[in-house]
């Protein structure tokens, strides 16, 4: 595969031949492009050796797990966690942020495993929901401590798994909204603050998933829950759209996912008995078309894709509500295509003039 520097060398030769760039600038331009770090064979073998040694240790411990005294097993689990966290602290101190974040992610996941293994080692019974949420809180603490958005993603994933794992009801028998309802907006704010696209992806998806944790809490009010969620997510999308210039990539990512969520929630609201019908499907289609136009205007692929998928889903919903009749289907799609062609033609005429 040709790298950027090789492509640049080739292009530069072409530009010099075409007298677009002075030949004496060639060396200076190429020097300004740093050579990507290449892994030499010795380093690659050292990494492979380290990984194999790690796998050997894990396999050895696993093979002798039940023969190892409980307290020693517990100490091994804690040592693995402290080793990863200590490595992250060392890497942070040495100015290696990527390695620090990766090791903190490993530490967060080892701690989640440690919760389960501690329960197994000492026969401590507990439900999966509490364990997963505990792992999420621990990861959030590590994310805050290390200023690491990647660990924030891990925290959000564990909190989300906790919302859907274990019994749906709390200890008092009540259904409560999932923790994602609060965690996703917090993660979105953290994504903007740290300029992290990874955390923005997780927060945007989490905000949509959070809506489904409200179903049990507001049973029998599907339309109200999903329409409210669509409005809130839509308002959120509008808000981060306005912040795109200031926060750049993470705001753009959030804008895309919140638009997806808003449109999907509007569609799901149609499954409620009170909203079923042609009117909802038509409104869904109109909203989808508006989202496509917005996505094209903002040159935002994720938003455009949300509109396209929404339009297809709304079309299917409309046909379902009308009753599946092939002639009617042909008529609806024919009218839709005529309308789209007419708008496209008008736009092209206006641009040409």
């Amino acid at each position, binding site marked *: 595969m040709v790298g950027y520097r090789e492509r640049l060398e080739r292009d530069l030769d072409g530009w010099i031949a075409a007298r677009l760039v002075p030949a004496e600038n060639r060396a200076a331009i190429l020097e300004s492009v740093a050579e990507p770090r290449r892994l030499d064979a010795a380093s690659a073998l050292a990494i492979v050796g380290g990984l194999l040694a790690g796998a050997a240790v894990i396999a050895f411990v696993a093979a002798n797990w039940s023969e190892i005294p409980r307290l020693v097993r517990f100490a091994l689990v804690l040592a693995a*966690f402290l080793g990863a*966290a200590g490595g992250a602290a060392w890497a942070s101190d040495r100015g290696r942020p990527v390695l620090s974040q990766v090791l903190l992610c490993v530490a967060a996941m080892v701690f989640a495993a440690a919760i389960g293994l501690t329960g197994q080692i000492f026969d401590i019974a507990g439900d999966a929901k509490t364990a997963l949420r505990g792992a999420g809180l621990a990861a959030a603490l*590590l994310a*805050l401590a290390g200023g690491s958005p990647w660990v924030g993603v891990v925290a959000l994933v564990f909190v989300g798994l906790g919302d859907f794992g274990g019994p749906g009801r709390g200890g008092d028998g009540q259904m409560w909204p999932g923790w994602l309802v609060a965690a996703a907006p917090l993660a979105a704010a953290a994504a903007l603050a740290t300029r992290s696209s990874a955390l923005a992806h997780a927060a945007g998806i989490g905000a949509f998933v959070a809506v489904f944790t409200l179903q049990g809490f507001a049973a029998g009010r599907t339309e109200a829950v999903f329409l409210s969620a669509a409005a809130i997510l839509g308002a959120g999308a509008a808000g981060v759209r306005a912040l795109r210039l200031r926060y750049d990539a993470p705001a753009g990512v959030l804008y895309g996912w919140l638009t997806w969520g808003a449109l999907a929630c509007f569609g799901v609201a149609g499954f409620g008995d009170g909203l079923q019908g042609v009117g909802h499907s038509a409104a869904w289609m109109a909203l989808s078309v508006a989202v496509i136009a917005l996505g094209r205007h903002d040159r935002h692929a994720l938003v455009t894709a949300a509109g396209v998928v929404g339009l297809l889903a709304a079309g299917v919903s409309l046909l379902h509500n009308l009753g599946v009749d092939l002639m009617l289907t042909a008529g609806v799609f024919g009218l839709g295509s005529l309308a789209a062609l007419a708008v496209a033609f008008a736009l092209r005429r206006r641009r040409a003039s």
Partner: protein
Amino acid sequence: MRFPAPRARILAAAVVLTVTLCGLVVREGVARAGGQEIRLAITGYDPRSLLSGHYVRFQIRGDDPGGLACPPGSERNAGAPRRWVALRRQGEAHVASGAAGTRTEAAALGEVVVRGSLTCMRVMDETVLPDGAVRRESVSRLAAIDLGVDRIHLDQAQAQTLERRLQGREEAAARAFAVFSVDAGGKARLKGLVVDGRRYDLNWW
């Protein structure tokens, strides 16, 4: 105010989490040692064998050879989440004597109250009448007691020993008990198993 460097913050968070986990283990150990001890008859968890891997999975017996009817409160309690179960002593073990929505109500039904639930199921009871006719009626029978604990982790040697003792012996299964410690808050913690009169306790090693 200056925040500490990331290295210090990460190490502090790691220490806090480690101490939390250690504290949980110590707290559970203290609560397990200090609670009131009860024994409940157990059986293998069908369709699996009683033993799988290095842990014993069990179900607290709700069925009774004599056909124990559902104790008070258990029918409306079936399938509900955590409630209160009342237990009374019967011979060398405890049996369920009722279930209730509150601890106070449950305390009136038995000697020991513990967080959990009773599950009942409806079965057809057949009675042969003097004239030879068979009368069928639907009755509720206690099926299971759930205290939130369904397994005990043992080392391989202990697990295999238990398997040999229990495999294919119905009478041995009837003589298996789970030993619980019930704390002041009504939470049951597993302490060990008693199989064929021999006790297997959880310990730190």
